[in-house]
């Protein structure tokens, strides 16, 4: 008997013994497409990580296109290595290629359930390890202005995100740096973890990390349901904001992230509103400074009087300043106050104006002076004995004088 004759017998025996289509649960250990579009898989069954059964399988090109699309739409993951699936197969024996399964149909519902189960297990593990809430426990920065982005740089989601940030209508400046990563496929875990490591090394340069999905296959969220990535997010030292852009249930990355937004654009909005919140606090304080300063200045028993008293004394004793000039000073202060009240448009300018008006150097420049006795500015004539030497400071230079009498605030001088 020739080998071909033997193999023909085997083929007949196999097709005789296993004539039907069978539903089989198996894990896809390897999946390859050849140039013609035929799909070749290695199917395995494992027990405690040990392979206890293995078989080659094929999907012919014309069936693969339909099957893979149907599967991906329902299961939200493409057919790929590592997933468990319920497959309808015919058992074939080929004289040259040996025994293999020809896949006729795939039931996505099984994989959906399987994926959900695995997600639950991961969530449970993160909870048991006590890290599931860690990232959420970090306080958001006062101003989330420096963003470390993990995404694929060529992806639409990344473009939307940065454009939205940069075109914010308030003119806030955002500093963003991309840490490129593969967001799907076999290498995504390694790639995303490496991006997180790179950010961690320079975490002082950033306020938050944004995990933005790069687009591509709308269905492949596997990388976001990965334990190692979720654990990294949970333990990350900066708040992580996710914008994975999917409508279905949250991924595990969303669950452990500090804040989960639906889309990259929503993440940008979130950050802009964070900066806006701070800007509003500053504006409110600015308003308060203006109002309190105005109130303090306008309080007649306070500043204006104090200044007036101070200058009246000086006027009475050292120089003869016409009352009109005091009025002028008062008017100028009033003008300053008015400006304080115009807080709608120029609170800051008004404040600065008031500051300028109150600057002693400016007051001196206008012809007023300060008189000192024993180095202290004089506010009360009664503390200066006759014969004391007082120093008067002018805008330019100083004068020394000997006191020959004191007066009250009415301007009349007593004594000599």
């Amino acid at each position, binding site marked *: 008997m020739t080998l071909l004759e033997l193999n023909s017998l085997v083929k007949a025996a196999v097709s005789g013994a296993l004539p039907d289509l069978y539903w089989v649960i198996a894990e896809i250990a390897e999946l390859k497409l050849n140039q013609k579009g035929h799909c070749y898989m290695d199917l395995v069954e494992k027990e405690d990580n040990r392979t206890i059964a293995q078989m080659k399988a094929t999907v012919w090109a014309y069936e693969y296109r339909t099957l893979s699309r149907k599967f991906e739409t329902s299961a939200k993951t493409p057919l790929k290595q590592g997933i468990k699936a319920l497959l309808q197969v015919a058992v074939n024996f080929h004289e040259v290629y040996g025994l293999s399964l020809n896949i006729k149909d795939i039931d996505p519902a099984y994989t959906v359930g399987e994926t959900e189960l695995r997600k639950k297990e991961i969530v449970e593990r993160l909870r048991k390890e006590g890290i599931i809430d860690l990232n959420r426990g970090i306080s958001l920065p*006062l*101003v989330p*202005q420096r963003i470390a982005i993990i995404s694929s740089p060529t992806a639409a989601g990344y473009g939307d995100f940065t454009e939205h940030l940069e075109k914010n209508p308030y*003119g*806030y*400046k955002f*500093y963003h740096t991309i840490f490129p990563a593969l967001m799907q496929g076999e290498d995504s875990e390694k790639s995303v973890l490496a991006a997180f490591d790179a950010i961690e090394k320079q975490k002082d340069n950033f306020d938050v990390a944004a995990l933005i999905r790069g687009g591509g296959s709308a269905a492949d969220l596997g990388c976001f349901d990965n334990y190692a990535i979720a654990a990294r997010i949970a333990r990350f030292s900066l708040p992580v904001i996710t914008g994975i852009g999917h409508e279905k249930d949250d991924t595990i990355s969303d669950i452990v992230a500090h804040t989960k937004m639906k889309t990259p654009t929503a993440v940008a909005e979130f950050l802009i509103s964070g*900066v806006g919140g*701070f*800007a509003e*606090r*500053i504006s409110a*304080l*600015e308003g*308060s*400074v203006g109002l*309190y*300063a105005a109130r*303090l*200045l306008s309080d007649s028993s*306070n*500043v204006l009087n*104090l*200044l007036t008293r101070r200058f009246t004394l000086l006027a009475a004793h050292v120089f003869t300043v016409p009352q009109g000039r005091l009025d002028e000073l008062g008017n100028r202060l009033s003008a300053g106050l008015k400006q304080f009240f115009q807080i709608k448009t120029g609170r*800051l300018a008004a*404040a*600065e104006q*008031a*500051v300028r008006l*109150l*600057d*002693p150097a400016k007051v001196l420049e206008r012809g007023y002076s300060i008189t000192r006795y024993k180095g202290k500015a004089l506010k009360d004539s009664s503390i200066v004995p006759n014969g004391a030497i007082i120093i008067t400071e002018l805008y330019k230079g100083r004068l020394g004088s000997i006191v020959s009498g004191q007066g009250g605030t009415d301007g009349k001088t007593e004594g000599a």
Partner: protein
Amino acid sequence: MVKPKELSYGSALAELEEIVGGMESEAVDVDALAERVARASFLIRFCKERLKGAEDEVKKIVLEIG
């Protein structure tokens, strides 16, 4: 005076709140008032400029004041 390096959004905000709190509750001497308003103005400018990314502008202000 806080060195420019040490001035952050957090410290600026805290100082501003302290200034406003002080103005609210204390009787403030005129000289102290001018000083506080000037400092508050500086802090507000620091924050606003920095929010808009005008770092050079901020540095200039710091040089003027510091």
